[in-house]
C-alpha cells in the first residue's frame, strides 16, 4: 500500500511536532528535514490546522504546534484528511459479473486490513517505533530511497 505524498508529509509533520510538546517548528524546518518545498508543506499544515491537529503560533520564532492527542490520533485520522481510504461499496451496477463481485470482495478485504492497521497506530506509538529504529533496536529493511521533493 502507498500513501499519497500529502498524507506522508502530514504524518511526518505530526511526528516532528508531537516530539516537541510545548514548542513549535516552522514549515521551513520540517520541510528541510524531509526535503520538501515549504509551499506544499504549508498547504498540508493548513488542512491539518482546519482538522484541529496543529495550531499556528505567530510572531518571531513562530511556527506550528501539535494540538491533537498523540495517544488518540491515528495515522488513519491524518491520512483520511488527504485521500479516500474507504472500501468500494457493494454496488451491483459496478459488479457486472460474478467475477467482478468476487474480485471486489477480495480487494475490499485488503483495504479493510490496511485501514485497520493505519487506524491502530497512534502518533505516540509511531514515535516509539521511530525511536526504536533510531536506537537500532529494529532493523531497517533496505528499500529504494524515495524523494518526497515536490
Amino acid at each position, binding site marked *: 500500500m502507498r500513501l499519497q505524498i500529502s498524507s506522508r508529509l502530514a504524518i511526518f509533520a505530526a511526528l516532528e511536532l508531537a516530539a516537541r510538546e510545548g514548542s513549535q517548528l516552522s514549515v521551513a524546518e520540517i520541510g528541510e528535514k524531509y526535503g520538501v518545498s515549504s509551499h506544499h508543506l504549508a498547504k498540508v499544515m493548513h488542512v491539518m490546522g482546519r482538522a484541529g491537529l496543529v495550531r499556528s503560533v505567530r510572531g518571531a520564532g513562530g511556527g506550528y504546534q501539535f494540538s491533537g492527542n498523540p495517544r488518540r490520533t491515528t495515522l488513519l485520522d491524518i491520512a483520511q484528511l488527504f485521500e479516500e481510504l474507504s472500501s468500494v461499496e457493494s454496488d451491483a451496477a459496478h459488479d457486472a459479473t460474478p467475477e467482478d463481485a468476487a474480485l471486489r470482495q477480495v480487494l475490499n478485504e485488503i483495504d*479493510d486490513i490496511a485501514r485497520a492497521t493505519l*487506524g491502530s497506530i*497512534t502518533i505516540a506509538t509511531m514515535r516509539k517505533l521511530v525511536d526504536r529504529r533510531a536506537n537500532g533496536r529494529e532493523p531497517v529493511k533496505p528499500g529504494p530511497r524515495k524523494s518526497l521533493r515536490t
Partner: protein
Amino acid sequence: MPTAAKTRTAKSEAAVRVRRVQAADIPQVIGLDTRVTKLAKAAYWNDIFRRYGRRRLNERFFLVAEGGETRAERRVLGFIIGEVRAWEFGSTPCGWVFALSVEPDERLQNVGDALFEAISREFKKAGVSKMRTMVARDDRLPMLFFRSEGMMAGPYIQLEKDLE
C-alpha cells in the same frame, strides 16, 4: 502536563500493585467486565477463575491490578489473563493474552501498562520469548493499547466462515 494531572498520575502509578487473582476478587472482576461490556457473565468468570486462577499456575496467569492504600480502599482496577500455549497452528510455545480490562475512569493512568508488563515478565519466566493476542479490527481502545505496547501484526491471518 498540568500539575493536577501529574499528581494524579504519580499517585496512581505509586498505588497500583499487580498480583495474582484471588477468589475474593472475582465479584469485582465480574463487575468491571459487566460495566465495560454491558454483558453480565458470572458463570464464565467463575469458570475462568477455576481454570486460570487455580490450575497450572506455572503457565497460566490471571493477574489483577489493585489500587488503594488501606485495606478498606483496595479495589481491582483492571485485570489481564494469559497462558503459554504450544503447537497450536504450528506455533512454537508462546504467551497468549486473551483478556484485558481496565476500569474506564482509571484509563491512561498506566494500569494497563503495569498489567501488560507483569504478564510479559511471567511469560519470560515461563520460558517463552513471544506473546500474542487477537483484537477486533474495530475495537479501537484495545487495539491502540496493544499497539502502544509495541505489538505488531504477526505471521497469522485469522479466517472465518458463516456456517450455512
